[in-house]
């Protein structure tokens, strides 16, 4: 009799446990699904943001390419800054010297005409 009562109690708990597990399982599935959906919304909004940034990047790239055009640089340098395109008569191209401590210039231009203050000499 006692055994039978105990068994009924166990059976009751077993049913309760089963019901609880099913409900908990269902809730877990629903929660997981909604969490994933929320995450997808977050990702979607981040993607939108990324798209905006990429668009901005494209526009900046276009702006950089336009601003760095040779025509524009020439116009600014010559017309606004008063600079001149190098005249080959006054340019002497010079070569790196393999032997250290030797500093000399040969050619049309004298050393003092090279605005030496503007240059640094390396003495390797």
């Amino acid at each position, binding site marked *: 009799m006692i055994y039978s009562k105990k068994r009924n109690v166990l059976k009751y708990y077993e049913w309760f446990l089963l019901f609880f597990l099913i409900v908990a399982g269902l809730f877990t599935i629903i929660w997981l699904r909604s969490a994933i959906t929320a995450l997808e919304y977050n990702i979607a909004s981040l993607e939108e943001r990324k798209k905006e940034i990429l668009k901005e990047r494209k526009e900046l790239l276009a702006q950089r390419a336009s601003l760095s*055009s040779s025509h524009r640089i020439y116009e600014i340098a010559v017309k606004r800054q008063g600079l001149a395109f190098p005249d*080959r008569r006054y*340019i002497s191209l010079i*070569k790196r010297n393999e032997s250290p401590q030797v500093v000399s210039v040969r050619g049309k231009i004298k050393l003092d005409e090279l605005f030496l203050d503007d240059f640094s000499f*390396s003495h390797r």
Partner: protein
Amino acid sequence: MTKRAVILNTVITICFVIILFRLFDLMIINHGRLKARAERQHYKRENKEVTRGLILDRRGRELAINLDAESVFCRPHEIESPERYAKELSRYLDKRPDIILAKLSKKSRFSWIERSLSTEKVEPLKRLGLKGIGFMKETKRFYPKGFLASHVLGFVNIDQKGIEGIELMYDSQLRAVLTRASLLRDANGRPLSEGLEERKGNNVVLTIDEGLQYIAEKSLESSIEKWQAEWGVIIMMDPFTGEILAMAVRPTYDPNNFKDSKPSVRRNRAITDTYEPGSTFKLVTAVAAFEEGIVEPETKIDCDGGRIRIGKKIIEDVHPSGVLTFKEVIGRSSNVGTIKVARMLGPERLYRYIRLLGFGSKTGIDLPGEASGYIKPPERWSIQSMGAIPIGYEVAVTPLQVLRAYAAVANGGWLVTPHVVSAITAPDGNPIYRFRYKAERVFSQKTALIIKDILTGTVSQEGTARLAGVDGNSVAGKTGTTRLFDPVKKTYSKDRYVSSFVGFVPASNPKITAIVVIGEPRGEYYGGTVAAPAFKELAEATLSYLRIPREDTEEGVLRLKGHTHGFGGINNATQ
């Protein structure tokens, strides 16, 4: 009570049975149809964003890029009040209401209203929330350098399909394949994560250098302006590899607004138009004569006082001469001397060398619309042809063909294949294709050296092209002046000329070879007066840009470390 319970039980049972039937209907009978319907609601098929590849210059500077844009379309059958919509839309779009109304009233189910608008312009339209009006994301091609190299780059149409230039020639590489993808949406149509996979086309890297292109365009522009010429061409090429470093054409257009220009302006005259090259064509006679052993540089030619009769025609020299060496014949551009040497060669041999130097056939440049020019076969030559062809008349050539022939002199006798694309890279930057230069030996190095020497003399103080001379470096080249043929009068015009100069610099170790062709200049017309100074300007700026040292100074030994002197001056100076 029992009776009520029975009724209740029965009702509940019936309800359950109905539910079971409905479930059976939903899950078994109509499962497929309903599943498809649900998928249609949750998944939206959309075109994935595709972006055309970039076009870069040889140093990686962007010449053609993409910008985001949006297009506005309508579904006319959904629009209830087209007149109101037309008025509303015209406020935001720069279009007349009647034009918009015509699109809104179409019988079709879809019609574009405006394509490739900036997203800023579309935003206020979206906020209106007009039913039947839709928006589609697209990309828009943008050429940040404007007019620069427009004839090389070409342009695309509204559907991003290449129409001209590189855009057309390499369209299959630049274009990304349009794909459709299923994107997940919620019940309200809000998008869930769809990924940011952007399909990009391959990038095309050109041999063109933006700096050199600008120098070429500037030189051409100033020359056209100075001589009030109708058109002009400058091409700059590496004589050893055939890489086109610059290709400038006037008149020109802005590829961003290509519709504003006439088709004739958009034509790349450097390769599509032919002209009679005049004295620059004397090169062929010189090459043939040396290769065939007909003459030596010092062989004396009697120029008969600068007059020669060919059939019924008398051909004269600009500077009449008596006896000249063959070197002087070319240097002074004597028509009589050249014709006499050509006669020694005969039509067959002359024709063979014309073809050997690439005239009458396409150069193979990777740009669309190249003309092959026209050279009559010897059997069709008239009596006058033997007097006209050696001095560059009765032949139709492109400026690029002439340049290629002179490049063969510069590089020691090799006919190179000109090209404007050096590589094609994947969107991630990995190279897919690299151009391998092709060259074919067409005459001996000995002949090339002799002609190089003669052409250097042409640019000396005694030559016809002294104005092409560059301070500090030797230049080799040849001038050309031709009268334009008037197809109406069927005779050569007396006031319409084509002036040209083609040459290379430094003559001893050529780095660039270039041609300047000025069409219909006013005032002066000789190649030595009109085109040669443009070459000088071009060569001086180019040599500075490429940091090619002067030949008249000894090698300097001053060591500098990364400094700039003035605008575009010494930077990391090397010799």
